[in-house]
Structure formats: structure tokens, C-alpha cells
């Protein structure tokens, strides 16, 4: 059976673009910056509506973060945008000192996170960005799962006073969450209730986890699927409640296992109630060139591997 259906597939970055277009009309304090990737970040709508609130920085990401900090000090709500690799790893010191340590109200919004930009290969596929950002004190880290949720998250973070990292991607993926949903930072969403295993997924892996739950159900296994769109602050309550019932779990993310969502969950559980846990993520490797689907299969970021890991977790109960 299908737990969720969808009518269209869209890229999450377009959800970001739609959210920005909304903000151009509804929040005069929001300004947008981009390091020469307007098309990739889907900023055309924002720029069309509010050209005076858009600042091209050129391919100079360090300066873009500093400019954003300065705009935030002056009371603006800057959205600094580029690819995830160049918006996090490349400019870590700028983010650390001028955004996180200074507590400036900067939103770092990055597309092309993870493996799924495909053909461009490892230089453009960052798999460490969640870890880098979640380590910074005060930084909120969000990885929404589809177009609608990305749009909602984009709008919601403007209301949060403080630094935020919002990551999304390029491939078209099923749009299965409600249109015009309200996005609550730090509030996990229980998508499928189950009693045998908990699957905690973020970003593109949420849909794969739903598919995995369908396959597991055919085997008579009831998986609970929870969408952890906010990696930091982590919804500890939702996680603890679920594992208290299922007694085993899988984390699933398009990111290194080191430093990712799974790490955060494991850290929580080892201090409270350690259950058998399996990790779906990239295992200490850089990405490579290929079609997104090929790469997701090779690196085990798909429904089949989630099923396998779920069965393993259950067997370890």
C-alpha cells in the first residue's frame, strides 16, 4: 500500500525560490544575497518583485557572509545563498565569527547539498555541511524534505531571530507534504506510525524512508517514519517517544554518517535509552559524478538500503 501519494515532482530549491518570492511581498526586512548563482537558487521571483532588496556579491562567498552580517547588524534579515559547499565549508570562519559567535540574524540558505546534484562530482557535493553547521553554538540547522516544506521553512525562518542554516537540493522529488503548511522549527513530524522500528529521516531521504516503510509492511513489519526536518534543535521528545515504542531505529540522511543527523540521535539515545541503531548515510567518502539516482543507490541512500538497515536493527533487538 502507498502511505503517501503525489501528483508532481519538484526540486526543493524551487520551494526555496517560492518562499523567497512570498517574502519579497510580505516581509520588507528580508534581503537576499547571492554569489553568482541566481538561477540555481531560483531567486528570479524575489528579484523581480524586489530588485532593490537583492544584492549580487559575485563569486566571493566570504565577503557575502560578512556583508550579510553587516546587513543584519543594521536590522535587515539577510538570506545569503549559494551552493552548500561554498556557503558552509568554504566560509566556515566567516560564519563562525561574524554570524554564529556574533549571533547575527543571518540565514544561510544553500542548494545542491549532498550527492544529488549528480554529474558535477565531489567538488560540488558537500556531505559535511550539517556537521559543520550543527557544531556552531546557536545555529539552527534545517533540511526540509520536499518543495512545499522547503517553501514553508524558508518563510518560517524569517520569524526566527538568530542564525539559521537551511539546506536543500537540485533533483526533482515527490511533493507529498501539504501545500501552505505551517513550518515549526524543531518540531519533528510523525509521517507513519509503526511499532517495530523507528526511521528518522531528513531531506531527500524522507521520501525514501516512506518507500522503505511500504516495502517493510509487505514483510509484515510496521515501521514508524519521522521527518526530522530540523536537525538542530533536535526534537528529543519525539525521538524518545518513538523509540520507547519500537525499541530500535535507523537514521537516514544525504550526508556523512560522521557528524550528521544520526550522530545527534545516537548522542541523545546513549544518554537515555540506547537501542539497536543503524545508520543510512555516506560512510567516510567523497561523492563522485553520476546521475543522482545512480549515486544514491551506490552510496546506499535509498529505500532498499533503509529496509536492509531496518531489518538489521530489528534483528539486534
Amino acid at each position, binding site marked *: 500500500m502507498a502511505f503517501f501519494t503525489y501528483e508532481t515532482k519538484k526540486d526543493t530549491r524551487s520551494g526555496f525560490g517560492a518562499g523567497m518570492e512570498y517574502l519579497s511581498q510580505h516581509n520588507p526586512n528580508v*534581503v537576499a544575497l547571492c554569489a553568482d548563482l541566481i538561477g540555481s537558487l531560483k531567486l528570479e521571483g524575489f528579484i523581480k518583485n524586489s530588485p*532593490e*532588496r537583492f*544584492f549580487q*556579491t*559575485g563569486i*566571493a562567498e*566570504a*565577503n557575502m*557572509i*560578512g*556583508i*550579510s*552580517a*553587516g*546587513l*543584519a*547588524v*543594521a*536590522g*535587515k534579515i*539577510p538570506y545569503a545563498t549559494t551552493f552548500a559547499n561554498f556557503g558552509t565549508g568554504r566560509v566556515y*570562519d*566567516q560564519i*563562525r*565569527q*561574524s554570524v554564529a*559567535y*556574533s*549571533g547575527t540574524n543571518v540565514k544561510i540558505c544553500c542548494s545542491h547539498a549532498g550527492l544529488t546534484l549528480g554529474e558535477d562530482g565531489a567538488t560540488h557535493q558537500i556531505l559535511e555541511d550539517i556537521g559543520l553547521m550543527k557544531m556552531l553554538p546557536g545555529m539552527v540547522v534545517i533540511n526540509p524534505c520536499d518543495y512545499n516544506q522547503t517553501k514553508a521553512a524558508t518563510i518560517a525562518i524569517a520569524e526566527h531571530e538568530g542564525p539559521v542554516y537551511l539546506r536543500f537540493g537540485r533533483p526533482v522529488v515527490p511533493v507529498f507534504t501539504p501545500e501552505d503548511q505551517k513550518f515549526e522549527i524543531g518540531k519533528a513530524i510523525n509521517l507513519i506510525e509503526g511499532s517495530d522500528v523507528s526511521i528518522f529521516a531528513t531531506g531527500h531521504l524522507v521520501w525514501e524512508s516512506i518507500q522503505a516503510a511500504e516495502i517493510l509492511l509487505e514483510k509484515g513489519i510496521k515501521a514508524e517514519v519521522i521527518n526530522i526536518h530540523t536537525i538542530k534543535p533536535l526534537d528529543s521528545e519525539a525521538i524518545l517517544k518513538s523509540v520507547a515504542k519500537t525499541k530500535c531505529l535507523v537514521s537516514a540522511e544525504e550526508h556523512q554518517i560522521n557528524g550528521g543527523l544520526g550522530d545527534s540521535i545516537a548522542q541523545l539515545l546513549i544518554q537515555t535509552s540506547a537501542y539497536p541503531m543503524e545508520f543510512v548515510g555516506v560512510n567516510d567518502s567523497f561523492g563522485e559524478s553520476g546521475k543522482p539516482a545512480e549515486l544514491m543507490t551506490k552510496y546506499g541512500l535509498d529505500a532498499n538500503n533503509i529496509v536492509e538497515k531496518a531489518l538489521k536493527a530489528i534483528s539486534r533487538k
Partner: protein
Amino acid sequence: MTITQLKEKSKTYRKKILELIFHAKAGHTGGCLSIIDLLNVLYNHVLRIPSPKDPSRDRFIQSKGHAVEALYVVLADQGFFPEEDLKTLGQYQSPYIGHPTKKIPGMEQNTGGLGHGLSICAGNALAAKKDKSDIKVYTILGDGEMAEGSNWEAMMFAAHYKLDNLCGILDYNKLQISGANAQVMGLEPIKQKIESFGWSVKEVDGHNIEELVNTFDQLPFENGKPSFIIAHTVKGKGVSYMENVAKWHHGVPSAEQLEQALAELA
């Protein structure tokens, strides 16, 4: 404030900086003495800061954060916090730490890691332009700091956006922690470099109060262009045994050395 009064202020500030660093047993003595005349003229002649949180205030961010003791002395003198509080400098739980933080009234941003200040100031200046505000934004950069690539990104940006409400100031004492700029990483020809990035540049003696006042009074040097002041300074200025000696970058005077320094500044 008159030129004579400003000159007296510089003397007083120098003594206070030395006493502060001696008391805390830590600080960037050479750089503080190098920028103190710049800070003096900025805070007592140029900047309009009715109070630290006044929205209409001009903004100053010290990009070379390590010379923070000079800024502490000047901000205390502005009455932003009691000078007495500085006795806790560097102590456990004191807000007065070795680099600027926003916790201190009058400090706009956390700095310390180099190459951040110019970008932040450019962002601030851009926001002021968009808001049609007449706020002016100033930063002091270290000469060693100019090797940071982000400064040159900010240079391009500020010229591109015609931020003539922005003023960069180079504390050009020609020495950095490892030695002479020329040996560590040559800056010259710095004036031509900055001009070629689209800024309007003037060179001054960074310890000549009259010259500094006259130069700041000419801002912006050209409409539609950000301004840059290359202030030729002396590391450790005012204390004979510190002047132009790189080891005073992070040196703390002994009791005898302090006594001699204060005598020279009397």
C-alpha cells in the same frame, strides 16, 4: 575638541593603555599605541555616537580586533562604561576579553579573526544607503591583515555598490607578528592597489592629529566611491624602546619598563 585637547587626549590614552596591559599582564601593546591617535580622532572628532545604541549613530568596527585595549580605553573615556570595570580585563568571567565583543557597550561586532571587519562594514554601509540614512561606517584594518583575501572581496563589493559612506583605515606600521610586512607578505604598492579597486585613497601621518582631523574632514573623498585612509604609523609609538620593534606586538611591559614609558609620555 581642539587640536591641543586632542593631543592631550592621545597622551592620556597612551598612559592608560600601558597601565591596563601591565595590570592585565596581557595585551597587544605595539598595535594599541599604533592606532590610538586614529581612535582618538575618530571618537573625539569624527564619529557621531550620542549613545551606544542610538539608531542614528555612526558605526565603527575595529577589524584588527587584537588591539582591543586601545578601544577599551577610548570607549571608557566616552563614558560608555566605567573605566574601573577595565580592571577585570582578561579575568575569568569578565566581559572585557582580549578581542572586541558586542557585550561591551559601544562595540558593534565580535572581531578577532582577521579579514572580517571590512565586509561587515560594507554590509552596514549598504543597509544605510538602502535606508537613505546618513550613517557613516568606519573600520581600522591592520597591515598584516591585508593579506586576507576577504578584504579584497569587500574592496570590490564596496566600489561596485558605490559605498561612499564607508571609510577603511589602514594602520600601516609595517610590522606584523612575524616581522616586517615586506618580508612576511609584501603589500606595496598598496595605494595603487586600493585605488585600482575603485576606492578614493589618501595617505596621512597616522600620529599627526592635525593632519588626521583635516583628512577625516574631507570625507567622502569622492562622491560615489568608498574612501580609504592609509595611516602611516609606528608600532609602539610614544615609547622609545617599543617603537618599530615587532616583539612588542604582544609584549607586556615590566614594572620598570612601565615606569620608563610613563615618564617618556609625561
